């Protein structure tokens, strides 16, 4: 697929960079003139994916999170990748309210939010190798009830 525009950033897997990731994506997609709701949906989905990489992928230990973003016409494509421990059971991890870290007061809603706020979410993971979350959202589409 040929994109009209693309960007990629890599950053350390630390909590401070959750806001950085949201800000970078927001700035990148600004040219598509998203409404407040669309901007918030994308920022929230990015925040969830990056947080997952930091606290689940890397267990809050050292690592690098890579984020790629592409634009094709009015559609935004986002990929968040880590080389952390990976997900053993993706279907279980994506179940609403499931959390792999009950000790951290996590709500278990990360993937549910990504799926609700974006048009499409795909997750690929290999134990010991890492996880790739790929998300798509079209800008300017009426919100579904």
């Amino acid at each position: 697929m040929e994109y009209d525009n693309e960007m990629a950033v890599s950053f350390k897997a630390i909590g401070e960079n959750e806001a950085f990731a949201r800000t970078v994506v927001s700035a990148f997609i600004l040219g598509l003139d998203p409404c407040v709701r669309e901007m918030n949906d994308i920022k929230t989905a990015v925040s969830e994916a990056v947080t997952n990489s930091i606290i689940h992928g890397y267990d809050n230990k050292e690592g690098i999170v890579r984020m790629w973003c592409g634009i094709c016409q009015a559609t935004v494509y986002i990929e968040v990748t880590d080389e952390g421990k990976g997900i053993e059971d993706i279907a279980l991890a994506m179940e609403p309210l499931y959390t792999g870290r009950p000790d951290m007061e996590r709500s278990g809603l990360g993937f549910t939010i990504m799926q609700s706020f974006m048009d499409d979410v795909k997750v690929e993971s290999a134990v010991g190798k890492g996880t790739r979350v790929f998300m798509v959202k079209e800008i300017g589409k009426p919100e579904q009830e």
Partner: protein
Amino acid sequence: MDISFERHKNCLVVSVLGDIDHHFADLAKTAIDNEAVKTGVKNIVFDLSHVDFMDSAGIGMIIGRYKYTLNKGGLTAVAGLSENLKKIMMLSGLYRIIKIYDSVEDAAKAV
């Protein structure tokens, strides 16, 4: 971390300024718990009127404080939600156990 506390009778009002993500929530949880223990209150009201962004970490933070107040025989409430925050609250189902008020004054009176 932009968080401040105010005590209204038996209620701790927690005012947050800025984004609530995992990084913020991790720090805020400890600060709120310490303040709740110090003041001995049984109710907690979150003033989120100055929060533009909250992800699922905020839901986890509120649920944690809900459990705390429940153990004390009290309540947790939230006030001043933007449309984005309302959307997260609805999606999480949190509105079923935590009351949402337009203003902190309304929430503090009700709890």
